[in-house]
């Protein structure tokens, strides 16, 4: 039965791949799509028996048929529709893509500082070289994204450029039923540059089942610093799968925040490779889950060089019948001496029926390393609740405030003020007792 369903599913994807190829758009992306299509034909979708996907239930995604938007979406989106998700009023540079296609009308690129180039993938000459270099087919969804890529965002930051204003990439899914988009981002920060980016994935429709199948590639040059915030606010019936591949040069720094707020199935896969000594990556995440939703964070950090530091700090709040998975894998090869690595995954279960599967893991072949990993799952200790009660607050109020505090710790570490404020408000509204 599954076989048949999967077959049907591939057929629609293949039909869309053929349609794009036949369109002969003279598009700079077509060579890449061909390579992706070939890979896709060779690869099976991930199976639950594969360790990295063991706990991600993608059956609903494989059983459904998703037609890929070809060309610009017919749906009209106005600035009013985006008001709740836009940061232009806060002075941020904003790139808007509607159903996967760049919209110049909705984007605000006027305040873009010198030294930064932002372009739509469909029109960028430069992006092709970068895409060809960086793509790494870790699973069939990456191949599918590559085979169906039509547009996306390419950002290059010149050497020694410090970008003070954050860039917001806003992907909006209008939510035509059973459609798929394949967002693709490439971010290259040159030597000694500094750059802040927010990627938002927003669904405007909670009813219809859609698929966002994204790939993001980030290169942090030597001595550069990139802070990347990913915010998933997909529609309630939407599926979101995304693979992010990051390469760090020597003495570089990568800070990441993965904030998953909504969506039926969300998987954030983050692969970081540290290629030179002095690399530093700090990966933070927050997932707020309820209903019967599934959120999966899969992190792989490869200490390909000695003398690098990595940290993972992910927190989750699970309510209802929801499921979350955390997989953190840190790989330290034999020559990567003086590696320093910490992994921590803390979970708060608000319901007896919520499920968390957490697996912080280490694979160490070097002998001079300092690595820790840990996970916690729990509710609040009674002593804490009693303290609130002794100050006049009932247990329900105590739980609300404590849940907010638990989640706010991740939010508080964000340095882009408007994003921090908006996320803090979101968390507060979601859990505050009043």
């Amino acid at each position, binding site marked *: 039965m599954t076989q048949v369903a999967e077959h049907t599913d591939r057929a629609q994807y293949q039909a869309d791949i053929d349609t794009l190829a036949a369109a002969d758009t003279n598009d700079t992306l077509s060579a890449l799509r061909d390579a992706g299509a070939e890979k896709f034909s060779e690869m099976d979708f991930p199976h639950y028996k594969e360790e990295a996907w063991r706990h991600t239930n993608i059956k609903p995604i494989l059983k459904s048929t998703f037609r890929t938007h070809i060309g610009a979406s017919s749906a009209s989106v106005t600035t009013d529709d985006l008001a709740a998700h836009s940061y232009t009023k806060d002075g941020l540079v904003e790139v808007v893509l509607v159903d996967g296609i760049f919209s110049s009308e909705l984007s605000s690129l006027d305040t873009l500082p010198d030294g930064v180039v932002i372009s739509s993938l469909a029109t960028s000459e430069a992006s092709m070289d970068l895409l060809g270099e960086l793509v790494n087919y870790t699973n069939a969804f990456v191949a599918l994204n590559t085979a169906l890529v039509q547009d996306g965002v390419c950002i290059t930051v010149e050497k020694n450029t410090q970008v003070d204003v954050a860039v917001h990439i806003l992907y909006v899914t209008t939510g035509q039923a059973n459609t798929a988009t394949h967002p693709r981002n490439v971010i290259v920060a040159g030597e000694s540059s500094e750059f802040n980016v927010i990627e938002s994935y927003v669904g405007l429709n909670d009813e219809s089942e859609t698929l966002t199948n994204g790939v993001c590639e980030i290169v942090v040059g030597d001595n550069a610093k990139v802070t990347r915030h990913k915010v998933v606010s997909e529609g309630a019936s939407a599926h979101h799968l995304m693979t992010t591949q990051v390469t760090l040069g020597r003495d570089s720094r990568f800070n990441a925040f993965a904030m998953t707020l909504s969506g039926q199935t969300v998987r954030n896969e983050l692969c970081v490779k540290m290629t030179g000594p002095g690399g530093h990556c700090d990966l933070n995440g927050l997932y707020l889950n309820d209903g019967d939703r599934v959120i999966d964070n899969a992190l792989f950090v490869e200490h390909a060089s000695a003398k690098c530091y990595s940290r993972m700090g992910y927190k989750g709040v699970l309510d209802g019948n929801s499921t979350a998975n955390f997989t953190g894998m840190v790989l330290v090869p034999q020559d990567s001496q003086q590696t320093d690595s910490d992994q921590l995954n803390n979970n708060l279960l608000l319901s007896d029926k919520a499920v968390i599967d957490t697996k912080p893991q280490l694979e160490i072949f070097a002998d001079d390393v300092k690595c820790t990993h840990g996970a916690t799952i729990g509710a609040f200790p*009674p*002593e*804490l609740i*009693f*303290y*609130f*009660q*002794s*100050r*006049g*607050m*009932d*247990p329900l*109020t105590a739980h609300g*405030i*404590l849940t*907010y*505090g*638990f*989640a*706010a*710790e991740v939010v*508080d570490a964000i340095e882009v003020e408007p994003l921090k404020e908006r996320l803090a408000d979101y968390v507060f509204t979601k859990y505050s007792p009043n």
Partner: protein
Amino acid sequence: MLHVNNFHVNVEDTEILRGLDLTVNAGEVHAIMGPNGSGKSTLAQALAGHDAYEVTDGTATFLDNDLTEMPPEERARLGLFLAFQYPVEIPGISNAYFLQSSLNEVRKSHGLDELDALEFQELLAQKMELVNVPMHFADRNVNEGFSGGEKKRNEILQMAVMEPKLAILDETDSGLDIDALRIVSEGINNLRDPERAFVLVTHYQRLLDYVKPDFVHVLYQGRIVKSGGPELALELEEKGYDWIREMNPA
């Protein structure tokens, strides 16, 4: 204000308080002293309503309300305050927000309007000055990363904000150096009021040099075995708790 009669309290099926009697009136300061294990903290926690402390016999009323079946938050709203011996840390929640929520719960229960952030900020600033705590206490997470002394001072700040009718201070003086003790004591003295009563639970006489009690009680083996004025504390200091043990052989 507080009437405790023949109070029996179990912790994990072990009887700790064995028929304790205590009456506290408005404006009075009572010190309860005793050796380790005599039941001092049990009395404080049981009066505040911790559910690990099971009242098996006797009565406790506060402002004519029966305490024994009352949830802790309602006791707090009535004006009963416990300063904890070991205040807990609350990650992610600022002191200011915690105290504002706390005060507003109390105000709501009395049919008063809640204070908004700005109004509360003003009130908090006054209270911080009154009990001499630095301004950075407001924005720091509740007790997180606080030293032992800072935690105790934070309890006094909470007391100042909540303006209780009866404050029970559970070994607030323990572990304080002399400077911190002086600041904490001044805070307490600044909150003394004809309408407000204090119960100071302490192991050491030192606190009573700074906060003058009206009554001193000696708690031993779950009962008050001796009561007197401030001079009793001095006598205890001089003779030590062995004096009490000898008078009350097991």
